[in-house]
């Protein structure tokens, strides 16, 4: 017995030693930075190159998958000396770091997300290339809306996102928080697309009295509760306050912003019965499916993420941005569908940057239109055969012209989305007041900023 115990502890000791050796001294040892002494933007000078592009667009029949096929074909046709080798991996965020650290098969172009889990933490790891020299060469800062481009920025010391150096370039396809409406129902109720915030609330009241569900909502699965709050913030709060808070550009106290007003409005809508009955016990998937099936006048959701079976079904719906309560120029919570970065270990950095530039070009936007997806930069005519896409193009043109893109508020800290979700559910459950919600978000914000000092 004694002996077997000793043997056992010996075995455990060996395993500990083994696993520690495997784990390395400390997890995530950082790598040396990168040097971008010379920047080449003339394709002819790049020679014959094969570019490895990592993406998450695994479904080649989806609009984004088709778009990517066109991008690669278009790029190779335009620059015959550069070949593109794609590698599509689902759920890329979880193993992007491994791919970037891989010595032998480092990809050149990688999809790093906006926010802390993406560029935020990767910027200081030395795994992504600082794109500032290419920004100067290609002039992205002048060409693209600054409110979009800043979402791809981070400070090299890992303390901030939304400012500092450029670590990614957004593709020319947009995703934003928007209001979808049922065209037939809106007409039947004798309403038109609301032009002001008051008109929007009046439309919901009218739908309610006509026995319709004014707005579909389901918060049982948590995070989808935040979409409506984001839209309300964009409509009620000052864009500067939101941007400065999320990107910690100045010391914004949430209590001084209109966040509490947005939370209060959300609660008021809930108390007025504007949402799906018993929405706290409805999964978001059910709510949006019911909306697509014709139940409910509005839904606030992410553009391009409603489960339409066909284009014809989608065209029964329209979309618009929640009008600002102060009547100012439209602001929308939105970002590029994906931003791409260049791996620091890439041996084809120039070609990689050229590829990023191509994905942000007017041509890339045309491809998006072709697959009924709203582009993000440039001017596009709302003249396609899809009314829903045309609404999207109109919206994006408006935000682009006012440079009014707002970051997702939950980018502020890695824990913010969970805090917002839990607080909103508690608000609906009558456990906390709008003031408490703001205080909890501020506490989360302060704790995180403190850790970045």
């Amino acid at each position, binding site marked *: 017995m004694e002996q077997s115990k000793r043997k056992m502890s010996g075995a455990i000791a060996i395993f500990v030693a083994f696993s520690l050796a495997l784990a390395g001294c400390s997890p*995530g040892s950082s790598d040396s930075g990168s040097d971008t002494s010379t920047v080449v933007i003339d394709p002819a000078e790049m020679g014959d190159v094969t570019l490895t592009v990592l993406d998450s667009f695994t479904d080649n029949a989806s609009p984004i998958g088709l778009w990517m096929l066109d991008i690669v074909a278009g790029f190779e046709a335009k620059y015959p000396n550069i070949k593109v080798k794609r590698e599509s991996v689902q759920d890329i965020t979880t193993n992007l770091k491994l791919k970037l650290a891989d010595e032998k098969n480092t990809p050149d172009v990688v999809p790093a997300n906006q926010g802390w889990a993406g560029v935020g*933490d*990767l910027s200081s790891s030395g795994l992504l290339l600082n794109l500032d020299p290419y920004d100067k060469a290609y002039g992205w800062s002048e060409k693209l809306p600054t409110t979009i481009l800043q979402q791809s920025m981070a400070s090299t010391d890992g303390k901030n996102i939304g400012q500092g150096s450029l670590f990614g370039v957004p593709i020319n396809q947009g995703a934003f928080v928007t209001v979808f409406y049922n065209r037939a129902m809106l007409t039947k109720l004798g309403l038109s697309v609301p032009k002001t915030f008051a008109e929007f609330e009046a439309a919901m009241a009218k739908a309610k009295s006509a026995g319709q569900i004014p707005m579909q909502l389901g918060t049982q699965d948590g995070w989808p509760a935040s979409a409506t709050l984001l839209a309300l913030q964009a409509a009620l709060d000052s864009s500067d306050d939101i941007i400065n808070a999320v990107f910690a550009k100045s010391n914004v106290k949430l209590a001084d912003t209109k966040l509490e007003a947005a939370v209060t409005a959300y609660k008021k809508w809930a108390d007025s019965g504007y949402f799906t009955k018993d929405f706290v016990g409805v999964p978001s998937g059910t709510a949006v499916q019911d909306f697509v099936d014709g139940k409910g006048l509005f839904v606030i959701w992410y553009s391009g993420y409603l489960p339409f079976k066909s284009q014809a079904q989608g065209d029964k719906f329209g979309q618009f941005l929640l009008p600002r309560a102060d009547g100012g120029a439209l602001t929308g919570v939105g970002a590029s569908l994906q931003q791409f970065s260049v791996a620091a270990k890439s041996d084809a950095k120039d070609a990689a940057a050229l590829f990023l530039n191509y994905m942000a070009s007017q041509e890339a936007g045309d491809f998006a239109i072709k697959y009924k997806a709203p582009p993000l930069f440039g001017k596009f005519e709302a003249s396609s055969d899809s009314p829903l896409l045309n609404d999207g193009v109109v919206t994006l043109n408006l935000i682009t012209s006012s440079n009014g893109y707002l970051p997702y508020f939950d980018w502020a800290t890695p824990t913010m989305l969970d805090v917002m979700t839990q607080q909103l559910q508690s608000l609906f459950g009558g456990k906390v007041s709008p003031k408490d919600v703001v205080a909890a978000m501020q506490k989360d914000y302060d704790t995180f900023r403190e850790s970045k000092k």
Partner: protein
Amino acid sequence: MRIMSASPSLARKKKKSGSKIGFLYLLPALIAYGYVVIVPTFQSLWFSFFKWNGITEAQWVGLNNYLGFLSNPLVKQAFSHTLVLILFYSILPISLGLLSAALISKTQIRFSGFFRSVIFLPQILTSVVIAVIWRQIFSTDGILNDALRAVGLESLTQPWLGSFTFTLPVLGLAGSWTTMGLCMLLFISGTANISTELYDAAKLDGAGAIREFFSVTLPGLRPQLAVAMTLTLIAALRVFDLVWLTTRGGPGTSSITPSVLLYSKAFTQSDVGAGAAIGVLLAILALLVALVIVRVMDDKD
């Protein structure tokens, strides 16, 4: 004589080399087990001493991740929910399982094989299927609310999985449903092994049904009880999929469990160290549960 004295040592030698060869046979499985279970376990332990976002260089924080839990109300809440879940995953199914075992051992029920399979069925369903079934039953237009409306109890209808009061008990009931079959089957097969002479003796001594249960059936089921308790307690400790696929810990944090917290910390909040620390705590608790049960059951023997 010589042969006689040589043979035991030969036998011993043979036995020894045999066990070495046996170890060799085990080696591939051991390596695989070590690589996918043991190494990651100690890696988690190692990670739990760091503040690490999974990407940049980690910072050694010693026991701070663990000490942080002491002041974190969310962690306390998650573990307090585990206590509630133990009631539903372990105590309730074991009691019901014992009851059914006591009843079935006395009487011959027709189609008992069929009923046993039906009650055991949830045990072999994957957790996703279970989550979908219970989500349907307790959805706002689900079977339960429909049934309540049908019998005129409209006022009792609830958004069950969106309620601060009911969500955890409802998810707990789903757990009872899954572990119940296992407990029942274990106990029924256990009672079949108890010698009928003991029951006869009890009868002769004038024991009633209740006395018989506590004096004969229950002591006879001790090994099965140990297995059932170990499995169900550990199931209660690691509840994740059911919660994640329905409420993700909500509404608010009213149904959050340690495993859900672990997942959010490690994978959505980029706090790998804290996630690993929760995992280590869970592993220690599970080990303690198993040790205590084995010790208690052994002592009584």
